[in-house]
């Protein structure tokens, strides 16, 4: 499941669990800077979101229908 450990000092890391993801593309709608559902049906995403993109990243993780997005490290907002 997705989570963000607040106290961690490492850079935020984003990952998508391939076993869970069903390619709905809702993450792209929430965070177009980070996710892209390709024409080939594959999901591409940025593994290391910048500090300014964490709000978007958390929004995508909250909305993902399969709860497939994991977000670790970094600091919130």
């Amino acid at each position: 499941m997705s989570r963000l450990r607040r106290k961690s000092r490492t850079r935020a890391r984003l990952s998508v669990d391939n076993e869970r993801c069903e390619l709905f593309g809702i993450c792209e709608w929430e965070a177009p800077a980070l996710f892209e559902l390709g024409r080939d049906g594959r999901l591409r995403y940025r593994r290391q979101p910048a500090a300014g993109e964490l709000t978007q990243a958390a929004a995508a993780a909250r909305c993902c229908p399969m709860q497939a997005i994991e977000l670790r490290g970094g600091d919130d907002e």
Partner: protein
Amino acid sequence: MSDGDRIVIVGAGVAGLRAAERLRELGFDGELVIIGDEARKPYHRPSVSKQLVMGTARPSDMTLHAYTDLDARWRLGTRATHLDTAERVVHLPGVEQLWYDGLVIATGVVPRHLPGAMRHDPRVRVLRTVDDALAVRRALAASTRPAVVIGTGLIGCEFAASMRQLGRDVTLVGHARAPLYRFGPAIADSVSRLLAGHRAKLAMKSEIRHWISTKETFGLHLTNNQLVVASCVVLAIGSVPAVDWLRGSGLDISDGVLCEPTLFAEGADDVVVAGDTARWPNLRFDEVPRRVEHWLNAVESARAAAESLLAGRAAATPFTPLPRAWSSLYDVRLQMAGLPALAEDTVQLDRDVTGFVRAGELVGVCTWDRPHAMMRWTAELERRLPAPATTPAPAHAASTAGITRLATV
């Protein structure tokens, strides 16, 4: 914000969790109490009719996490029994009373019961909670007979797909002409073909004439004269808001909790509502208050309700989302945007893309396994149905002034 302030959230589902998270994000540093009658922390309810009833995921895999420190006091396994808005207290079982400065109501809905159904038979079940999914699995394990589901909406169809994926026979029983008929004839046709292709049985335009229950056999006699012997019967005929505990609170609970456009409960200064149980006018469409029972709405309304509560009733801004929802049946992704329920008519916009039209205006879109098309059409709906402009400050500038003021009255 003074340390003595307390916000109570009733309902520990996704909306309760996301409201708590947003309150902390916005800097609320008072006491946060979350009351939930299920004994579990908030979890991913959509998997109840999918992975959890199939047994392909464990309940613990479905726990939701917060993206900020909640520092909340959880009162799980505890049911709020009454609300006194004048005294600002929530009553808990026994004589316990919990005072609040701000209250978030997020108690969701409960499955509707079918008159005449043998609801005390352990083989008659509903699907809302993890415990419900586990109870259905127990009933299935006790007999190799087919499963029956009454109701052919999203949960009924998802359950039928789950049964076939387990290799179990299943019969869907429904009033309508076809399953998911409210999403228009094209979607109904696609889902009928999908279910039939996977050999789920459909008994449409029918209902139950008799329930037959002996120790060994359990079954249904349908109005189409079919007799179905069953291992379990799942009732999936819609839901009703969980607002019993609000009787006598003075809030309008005729269908969920009636709210202002900002999600403040109508007439209340310190009560906001989120998730399935909130009935509010979405000014993007019109001024008619409605409820929306979908996951993304629970997430978004919870954040908006938290923002409203902290901004205070006078400064709060209307919640005007473009609703979006999804379901998955086998590997088909079914997606919705807008408010299809408002439509008088449907049009075919593209292959597997149904448009919903009211007075010549597009008010919703539903796609059958076309996620890219859904993204395009969601953007198109946003363009055609813009959120009305509001003057007050945006959410991020929301202050905690509202709560501070309440605490000092």
